[in-house]
């Protein structure tokens, strides 16, 4: 208060501005802290940051076309893709030369698979033509245009060359366009045909279901955490074991157990039929759809909600509620005005944890989700291990990462991340 009346900056004892000497003393402390965490930092860098950066890079990297058929790419520059005419002989000659080199290096099938993401049939076209082109001589057999078209009539299709030209750039936005249900064409970005539009819907579903799962976790975990934090030690320890028990069971076992529970011949349906609540021919469909995924994932992620909530609630001393009641507050007012606001950091921490875990969850939706209950991560896994379109997988993963970061940022703006307490 007296500071305000003083004019000019505050000075430290030795005459340097107070701000500066404070910054200097803080810097020394920061450096020491940095030295202490450097082994961990290195580990995180190697095992976490580098893979993520490489994934980010893979989502735009597209060197394969220009590296495998460099001469063709150069020649295609002069070709008017909009014109509807086939490229001229120079392109075919360059392409044959490139292919011969590529076949030598066994690279042409890889290029085929890459282009196959954009236009189906390209993979087999490259593979089959490869065998024939191998027999051609780059000098003697010219001209090549007709010969190539004879080898595979795909080479006589304007679309083939358009595809090659469109995807010849070394850095592409094609994967990202694909990830949001669009595609790269010579005319610029265009929407995918309707039958191929699934990814945006999948993203939306993933977010929606993660929210529902987080919400149901909050509802279920709050009373449990409250009990854990307020019951006598002996009982709450027992409850805690029950909460932690699922952690000691394999994730697969837990998920499969839900399969047993929820399927049409499963425990729940059998019981309902036996009780006569549900007709035998109208058994509930509660698995292999979104409902199944929500139930199973809520159960599996519940401990991640309970633990932070519990540890926050445990730090709320009972004297607060006593004080409130002594001042005349009813039980409800005490809870709502005094207890609940102080437990919010726990809800926040648990929600972030559960939501982020849910949004990237893979095994459970895969097993109990059927086709309608799968998440975007299942799609990523499919592209990584089945279609081998790693670029698209990386683009999807990057978008997922960005979504999480944006949500995190929004959470920080609205609730404040320093309000999140894990204990």
């Amino acid at each position, binding site marked *: 208060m007296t500071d305000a009346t003083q004019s000019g900056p505050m000075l430290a004892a030795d005459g340097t501005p107070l701000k500066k000497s404070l910054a200097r003393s803080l810097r020394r402390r920061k450096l020491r802290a940095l030295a202490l965490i450097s082994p961990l930092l290195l580990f995180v860098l190697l095992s976490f940051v580098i893979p993520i950066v490489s994934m980010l890079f893979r989502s735009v990297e597209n060197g394969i076309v220009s590296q495998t058929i460099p001469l063709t790419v150069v020649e295609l520059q002069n070709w008017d893709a909009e014109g509807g005419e086939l490229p001229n002989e120079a392109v075919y000659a360059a392409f044959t030369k490139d292919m011969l080199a590529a076949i030598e290096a066994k690279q042409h099938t890889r290029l085929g698979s890459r282009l196959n993401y954009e236009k189906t049939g390209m993979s087999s076209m490259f593979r089959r033509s490869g065998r024939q082109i191998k027999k051609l001589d780059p000098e003697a057999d010219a001209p090549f245009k007709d010969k190539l078209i004879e080898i595979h009539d795909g080479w006589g299709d304007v679309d083939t060359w358009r595809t090659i030209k469109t995807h010849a750039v070394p850095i592409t936005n094609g994967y990202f366009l694909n990830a949001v249900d669009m595609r790269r064409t010579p005319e610029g970005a265009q929407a995918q045909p309707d039958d191929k539009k699934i990814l945006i819907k999948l993203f939306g579903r993933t977010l929606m279901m993660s929210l529902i799962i987080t919400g149901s976790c909050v509802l279920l975990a709050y009373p449990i955490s409250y009990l854990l934090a307020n019951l006598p030690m002996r009982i709450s320890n027992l409850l805690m074991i029950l909460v932690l028990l699922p952690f000691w069971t394999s994730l697969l076992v837990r998920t499969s157990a839900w399969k047993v529970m929820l399927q049409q011949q499963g425990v729940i349906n059998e019981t309902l039929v036996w009780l006569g609540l549900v007709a035998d021919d109208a058994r509930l469909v509660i698995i292999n759809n979104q409902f199944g995924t929500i139930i199973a994932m809520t159960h599996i992620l519940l401990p991640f909600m309970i633990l932070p909530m519990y540890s926050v609630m445990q730090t709320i*001393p009972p*004297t*607060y509620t*006593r*004080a*409130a*009641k*002594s*001042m*005349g*507050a*009813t*039980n409800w*007012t*005490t809870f709502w*005005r*005094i207890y609940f*606001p*102080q437990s919010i950091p726990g809800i926040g921490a648990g929600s972030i944890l559960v939501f982020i875990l849910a949004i990237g969850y893979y095994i459970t939706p895969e097993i109990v989700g059927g086709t309608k209950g799968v998440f975007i991560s299942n799609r990523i896994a499919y592209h990584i291990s089945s279609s081998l379109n790693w670029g698209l997988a990386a683009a999807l993963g990057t978008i997922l990462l960005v979504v999480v970061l944006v949500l995190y940022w929004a959470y920080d703006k609205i609730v404040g991340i320093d309000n999140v307490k894990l204990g």
Partner: protein
Amino acid sequence: MNRAAKDRTGEPSWYMSNDAAFVEFQRVQKSYDGEILVVKDLNLSMPKGEFLTMLGPSGSGKTTCLMMLAGFETATHGEIMLDGRPINNIPPHKRGIGMVFQNYALFPHMTVAENLAFPLEVRNIGKDAREEKVKRALDMVQMGAFGSRRPAQLSGGQQQRIALARALVFEPELVLMDEPLGALDKQLREHMQFEITRLAHELGITTVYVTHDQTEALTMSDRVAVFDDGRIQQLAPPDLLYEEPENSFVAQFIGENNTLEGVVKSIDGDSCVVALDDGSEIDAMPVNVKAAGERTKVSIRPERVEFNKDRLHADAHTLKATVKEFIYMGDVFRFRLSVAGNDDFIIKTRNAPDAVRLSPGQEVEIGWLAKDCRALDA
């Protein structure tokens, strides 16, 4: 004040309980674990408007008593009555008890002003009246400028003042305070002591006050209950407590006190002769001794010891003493003497123009009036 009518712990006070009692503990016992009695047989009756202090060593059950009175702990045995009704039949939020907790219990997620407004809000007091009351309460504890701060941004003493303001802001009939001034500096503490007593009397609030500080207890209270070992050792107005302690615990605990041990030689009505362990004899007043031959601890206040023979009865017993130390304290002189084997016998005299200054090594004869020397339990 008719002191003779005030109840003493000798007789359970609930016998004298009358309908006027506002707060009443009847044979209350409390155990937390079913093994140890934290409160043993507590009897206490307070009229409306009284300021009663619970004083006692740490762990003697003071907070426990407050919590039972506030209804947050239930008595294991016995009954606690508030205004003639058993406390456990009134839900806590209907009791109208203001409370200052030992650790303040300010709501961390609310500002100071919101903390103070909370009890008013739950009573549905209008916004204007609320703000007015909050402001007055803050000014009362000299914290007017801090209304918009969070409790975590206050010092311990400031938090304590806010806790106090919050307990008083809704003008409760009964206020319980658990060491509300423990963290304050001397000057502020004295100011707050004055403020609390003034408010309590002005508003006619019945107050139960817990403290470790006996000066605080003596200066603020109408009556003081000295706690030890889960029992009230003595319940009396401050002057009686100091001048007529009923057992050696109270004598030791309140103020400075000299203790000598011996055996009662003879009793004659209001005075007796005690033979000390070294064979010398002194005059005393029998308090907790009934017959000759009993062991006793006698207690005498430092300022009641005389070494000027003229002021004693001609036939009074005297003791030989050697001065060990002289301590100059400004308004009083303090001497440490060796008397009958006790090297820590203290005498105090007022720094008057004619005061005698004894010097170390000097031999003196000391004595006292029989009524100032109390023969208590051994």
